[in-house]
């Protein structure tokens, strides 16, 4: 009995005061989208993050046109980190599939692997920072450096924020009594978020390689 308003033009053409429309409206269950609130919450967060990262990309493109821009050379470590992140996303997908099949023991183990890989990624990023610092490439040495440090820091903070929710979902699996529906949803949403972070990383890393 739900009527989902997906077309904003159709929606705004409704005449709520007319009897015929009222009959339709009385059947409305009060939800606009067929999504759980948690899912919608994660999507909203991803939209806001996308705006943030897009604005950085715009600033980056604007700033690199100035003559003092000296691109950084990417160490092989960054490629390894990228591979780790891809692997994390893949393993997370596996965990999601396990939890959908109600194989929570396997899901638990894969989730632990996700955590390990994520921390490995963050450690890898810190090692890249150390590598650049040893080369004398500090944050203020060149605008390209500044953007690199800022991008990786923000992306890393997003990963850490995701790990907070990852920890909550994984800890649930270690308790005896957990809500299966909620746990499944938490794992699914965390997986989505990790895929999102991978795409963000592709765009940021791609931008660095391309320039």
């Amino acid at each position, binding site marked *: *009995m*739900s*009527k989902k*308003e997906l077309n*904003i033009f159709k*929606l*705004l*053409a*409704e*005449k*709520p*005061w*007319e*009897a015929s429309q*009222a*009959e339709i*409206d*009385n*059947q*409305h*269950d*009060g*939800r*606009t*989208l067929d*999504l759980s*609130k948690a899912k*919608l*919450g994660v999507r*909203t*967060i991803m*939209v*806001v993050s996308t*705006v*943030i990262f897009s*604005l*950085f990309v715009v*600033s980056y493109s*604007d*700033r690199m046109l*100035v*003559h*003092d*821009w000296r691109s950084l050379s990417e160490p092989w470590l960054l490629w390894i980190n990228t591979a780790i992140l891809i692997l994390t996303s893949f393993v997370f997908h596996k965990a999601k599939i396990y939890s959908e099949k109600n194989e929570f023991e396997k899901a638990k183990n894969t989730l632990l692997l996700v955590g390990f890989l994520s921390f490995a990624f963050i450690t890898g990023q810190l090692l890249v920072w150390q590598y650049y610092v040893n080369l004398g490439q500090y*944050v*203020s040495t060149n*605008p390209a450096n*500044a953007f690199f440090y*800022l991008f990786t820091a923000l992306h890393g903070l997003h990963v850490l924020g995701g790990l907070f929710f990852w920890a909550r979902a994984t800890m649930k699996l270690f308790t005896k009594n957990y809500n299966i529906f909620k746990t499944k949803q938490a794992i699914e949403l965390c997986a989505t978020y990790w895929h999102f972070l991978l795409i963000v990383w592709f765009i940021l890393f791609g931008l660095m390689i391309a320039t």
Partner: protein
Amino acid sequence: MTDEYTDNKLETKAADSSSGSYTPPAEAIPAKENPEQELYHAKSFWTKWVFCQDAKVIGIQYALTATAIGFIGLILSWGMRLQLGFPETFSFLGPATYYQSVTMHGMIMVIYLLTALFLGGFGNYLIPLMVGARDMVFPYVNMVSYWMFLVAVLVLLASFFVPGGPTGAGWTLYPPQAILPGTPGSEMGIVLMLVSLSLFVIGFTMGGLNYVITILQSRTRGMTLMRMPLTIWGIFTATVLALLAFPALFVACIMMTLDNLLGTSFFMPEIFTMGEKLDYAGGSPILFQHLFWFFGHPEVYIVALPAFGIVSDLISVHARKNVFGYRMMVWAIVIIGALSFIVWAHHMYVSGMNPWFGFFFATTTLIIAVPTAIKVYNWVLTLWRGNIHLTIPMLFSLGFIVTFVNGGITGLFLGNVIIDVPLSDTYFVVAHFHMVMGIAPLMVVFGAIYHWYPLITGRHLNQTLGKIHFWVTFVGAYAIYFPMHYLGFIGVPRRYFEMYDSPYMTSGVGLNQFITVAALIVGFTQFIFLYNIFTSWYKGEKSEKNPWKANSLEWHTPDYPPTHGNFGKELPVVYRWPYDFSVPGTDKEYIPQHVAPSEVPTAKAEQT
């Protein structure tokens, strides 16, 4: 009408009996698809009033914090006015203090008062009640949102006490001057300001998440989007704008913090001070302006759209008439919201941009006048032949319409590049934006407080003090800002600490003194309002339930004022929009949203 829904009736009974609750003898109630929300029930004083997850309490916390910091903003404006009206009279006002007052006044009023009050205050209090929800969808996140806001306010206040004082860079915080020596507060003040803004954005995003998802997903049965009060439409659209615009401020704040603390050059060009070259090179101050105004212009509508929505409801209720052109009102809100993202560079006409760029932004800016004009016409036509009750909310609403038209028309002038260039650095602009986004939304804030105060406390505000408050504020605001237009025309530049014996000022001296006196009086009146709010809380005249005879759900809760969980055992079911006033064919003067058609069988739909 009832015959067609036998199937649903069965379904409803099945759904209701499973939860073991009472089935109202109703029309067709569709099966309940939204599961009951799990509410957090507070047990101790701390969780009930301090770390509270009830949106109503959070709304009040937001409103009180915003009001408190707003009064500091008011006092800062007195400092500015004293300096401008009576220069070289007050020893405590030097150039640094003046610029710090200007900066903090602007930032506090726009972000920490108006944004927090409309979205955090009214949004939290009204959204669940008006859409028929028990609470926000993520009450815990909502609570964290308030505490982030409080920390942001405290960090902002802390900047008054650090060496060098708060930043004096102007509320736009333009680099490079904002972080260079010579600008007051360039030591610690600017850092605290940027940190505070970043915290505000994070906190707001948490709250905004709640407002949007509650409105979209947590409405009660029968509450379609097009049956929502315009207040909710305004708050909803403004929140969406804020979620998309605040990241720009966040990005700008982070990059400027790095420029300041770590010596990066995101925004800082090559600079020589005292003959020495600084370490900065190649950054673009214009980039900051773009980021800032990409946030800054939607910010104007983040403040204005909730005001538009609320004032529509106030006018409708207090003129006992349905809103003229409800659909057009919604359309206009949505279109204004969308357009607000492509007009930002009209704040930067004098930054040396490509003329075609300015042409584009002038065009989009002027297009916004169309939906805004539609709204003004609709407010006036709602009043037309309405049964206008000159209550205090109505007085403030009328004051809003006049003020908004006034500020809007000067906006038409300033939207044109060729008129803006000579006027942009004068008091004309100050007059314009204070009229349109200072006084006009504040009129709505005041009207809304007088309107909803009985709902929150169960008591009315004192009417005599309210009338004094309205008349002094309304007339006084014009006494302050009308002369400023004239000052702008004769070329008095804004942002100047003192004019000394400049020829521009000879005819402006008396005016400036007049404005200052008016500003002191209007400011003092706000303290009367504050007194009214606090004394009426326990001494005010008791209000009966639904004193304004309004239709929207917040007035029809079983407990009055509404308590935890808002709607008692059963959520209301909505059968109509909230504007059924004086419906033909029935003797009822107004039909609340939850009244079923069978209770008013003779009512006919109004022809619009």
